[in-house]
């Protein structure tokens, strides 16, 4: 009986895992098929050819290289800036009796819960007004501004629960506020920062809506909107589109594999509170 149940469990779960991983593997395999193979046998058939030229086409002709560079130029400063600013706010709000601190914190969180649609038009117009429209600076700024509230809220919860004695000891040793922040609090907050860092990297890297709202020129687009453009450029070259898809997915998969534990705990932060 028990054996039967275990068998059923594994059979069911293997089928289900296949349903989840199958489409991904299919795309990876398809990215190595030749154009003639797909044209003759369709995207639904098993591979009868092997080539890596598709990656070269997506990489150079399709502009994925430039798009990836753009993505990195946007994502890395956005993650660093938003976590840095959020840590500052969270530190001040959680460790000092700042008047109205609870209202400030919740207001900041509320900003992050807003549907972005209400912000799209004003943000596009504001970046035109400031001359930032169609530059990556606009994208960095809006990613930082929009993400801040949530990061501050999570880091606040984490810093609030750190024991107060550490801060007292540092104060007695003559450390100033800035030193307490950089030497004591930031190192202690590292697990939360790592979790949020991994999460926000994928969020910002994967973003489409903000990019197509504040950017217009193809040359400035990060990899997510560029992937949509690639689809228009190589209409029926499914192998090249598949290669482009794989290229666009690799960075977030890499971050996930490297920071797996942090990543999952980051997602779960809200859930158990």
């Amino acid at each position, binding site marked *: 009986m028990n054996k039967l149940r275990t068998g059923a469990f594994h059979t069911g779960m293997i089928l289900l895992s296949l349903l989840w991983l199958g489409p991904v593997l299919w795309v990876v395999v398809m990215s190595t098929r030749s154009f003639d193979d797909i044209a003759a046998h369709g995207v*639904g058939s098993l591979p009868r050819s092997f080539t890596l030229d598709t990656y070269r086409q997506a990489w150079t002709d399709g502009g994925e290289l430039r798009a990836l560079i753009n993505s990195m130029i946007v994502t890395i400063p956005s993650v660093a800036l938003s976590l840095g600013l959020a840590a500052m706010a969270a530190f001040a709000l959680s460790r000092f*009796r700042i008047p109205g601190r609870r209202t400030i914190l919740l207001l900041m969180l509320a900003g992050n819960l807003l549907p972005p649609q*209400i912000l*799209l038009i004003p943000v596009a*117009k504001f970046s035109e007004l400031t001359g930032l429209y169609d530059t990556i600076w606009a994208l960095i700024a809006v990613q930082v501004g929009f993400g801040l509230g949530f990061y501050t809220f999570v880091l606040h919860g984490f810093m609030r629960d750190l024991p*107060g004695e550490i801060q007292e000891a540092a104060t007695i040793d003559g450390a100033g506020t800035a030193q307490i922040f950089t030497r004591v609090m930031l190192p202690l907050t590292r697990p939360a920062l790592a979790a949020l860092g991994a999460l926000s990297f994928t969020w910002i890297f994967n973003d*489409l*809506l903000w990019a197509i709202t504040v950017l217009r020129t193809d040359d400035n687009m990060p990899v997510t909107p560029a992937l949509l453009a690639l689809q228009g450029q190589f209409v029926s070259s499914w192998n090249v589109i598949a290669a482009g898809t794989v290229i666009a997915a690799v960075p977030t998969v890499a971050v996930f594999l490297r920071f797996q534990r942090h990543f999952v705990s980051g997602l779960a932060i*809200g*859930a158990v509170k």
Partner: protein
Amino acid sequence: MTATISTTSVTPTRRRRRSARLSPLLVAFVLVPFAVESIWVFWPALQGFWFSLTRWDGMTPPTFVGTDNYVELAGDATFRGALVNTVIWLVLFGGLSVLGGFGMALVLQKERRGVGFYRAALFTPVVFSLVVTALVWRVFYQPDGIADTLLRAVGLESLIRPWLADPQTALYAVILPALWRQIGYVMVLFLAGLKAIDPALHEAARMDGANSWQRLRHVTIPQLKGVNAVVLSVIVIDSLRSFDIVWSLTKGGPYHSSELLSTYMYSTAFQSLRLGYASAIAVVIFVLALAVILGYLVRAFREEA
């Protein structure tokens, strides 16, 4: 919860001294992030409400038209279609991802051989962008793609249709990939919640002769109350925000059959350049999200108390 300086362990005299000593640095620590968020979120949000009361093409200055945009929305068939689709999206995408995610979390909560792999498999799509997800599924839906090949293999050729180009199926063909990506995410939230339940509660229930269904109903689900609230908020907010997957697969078409409020808002704003009207759609999305946002904030407020 640990006592911190700022909350419980401060004597009145020291408290007074501390607030008197609010250094300029600390003020800057709060004000700089707050100013950044004000410029890019709070101020634009207020402007958004104002724009919804104007007619505006983006070139000439906006003209105030009162509630005209909202009156027009009420008679706009495309808007009504998008509203209905958004509700369908909320029910199917939201409901099924909660059921699926919870079910998977229950099945995979016990540590045993293979569980790590299964969890990872279900979670994999979460790290992909929705555009990547869309392209993966486009291959699936392509004429002579995987879906058609599978249907042919089991002799159901008659069902074959252009899944994304048929107004009858487009919306559902877009929901499926969105679900595929969301279920793993919801599963992780529930797994974290299940892990936090005290095993003694289950033990006690079992001693009292509760079967597994009764334990699920009377121990697990009530214990997950906090997680349920978070998941519910996340799901509703995510549903109303859903844009990328629809935009990458159908752009809301064909004939607005997979149009959501979010995609209709975007095309009205940036393709038809009717910025005032689009702002009114955005306000409707905001109003729909409001109850959930407030609920979330009230919970957060209580926690901070």
